């Protein structure tokens, strides 16, 4: 919508009126800003209410615990049947004398190696034959 006034006379009146300055308001600007600041910083009631509610709850629970009738200790006997152990589940005999006796002692072995070199080592149980079998010996064995 056009906000112009087409009548020249009304235009002049409009301009004359607009030239009038509204009387300065009797507002105390500083006091107004102070009050506005107070109003904008007013405490919200959410957190105080939450704190009061939790405090009341804690006090109520404390009173409840203090006044509660404590029941005596309850003894319950439970019988548990254990299955008999099978032979396969017997523990292995791991007495140190039995398995350690068949092995060369480490310190003796070290001494033999130091004094005789590799010849000091005990012979291997399944050592290979010194000579390969000849064909004639194999045929003779048939």
């Amino acid at each position, binding site marked *: 919508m056009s906000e112009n*006034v087409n009548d020249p006379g009304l235009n*002049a009146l409009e301009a004359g009126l*607009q030239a*009038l*300055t509204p009387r300065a*308001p009797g*507002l105390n600007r500083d006091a*107004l800003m102070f009050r*506005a600041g107070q109003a904008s910083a007013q405490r919200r009631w959410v957190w105080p209410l939450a704190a009061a509610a939790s405090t009341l709850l804690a006090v109520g629970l404390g009173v409840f615990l203090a006044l509660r009738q404590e029941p005596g200790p309850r003894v319950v006997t439970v019988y548990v049947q254990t299955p008999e152990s099978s032979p396969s589940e017997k523990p292995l005999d791991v007495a140190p004398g039995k398995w350690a006796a068949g092995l060369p002692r480490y310190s003796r072995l070290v001494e033999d190696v130091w004094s005789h070199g590799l010849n000091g080592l005990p012979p291997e149980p399944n050592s290979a034959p010194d000579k390969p079998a000849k064909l004639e010996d194999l045929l003779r064995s048939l």
Partner: protein
Amino acid sequence: MGPDDLGRLVDLHAAALVLYARQWCAAAEDVVQEAFVKVASQRPPPDNPLGWLYRVVRNGALAVARSERRRRHHERGVAARVPAWFEPTEGIGLDAETATVALQTLPGDQREVVVAHLWGGLTFEQIGQLVGTSASTAHRRYLAALAALRERLHLPCPKT
């Protein structure tokens, strides 16, 4: 709303808002101050703070006017005791007191539109929203008010 924005609103619009509230009540400054305090505490701040302020001032001024009327048992001569609405002027075609009296004799709905548009700087759309009419109705009231003021101020009609 931050203090800077609020201070700017006060500096720019307090005088016009007080003039707007003076149409209805004598305690215009109190009404405007309350409106500024209210706008500062709005969460979130209004989208159009100026329009919001005018609406709050209007509602507050009308409420105060009702209570003032209840207190008064005589209404004659009230207009004569109302302080001047404008600063005294010299060298301008219109006298401040004469303009004040002429404005006070206008019908309330017309005067409201003139004050809101000329000194408040509101558009006719905003005024329509403020007073609950259409923009064209506000514009018609404005033109009618200017024509009535021209008669009351004895200004000559221009020759066409």
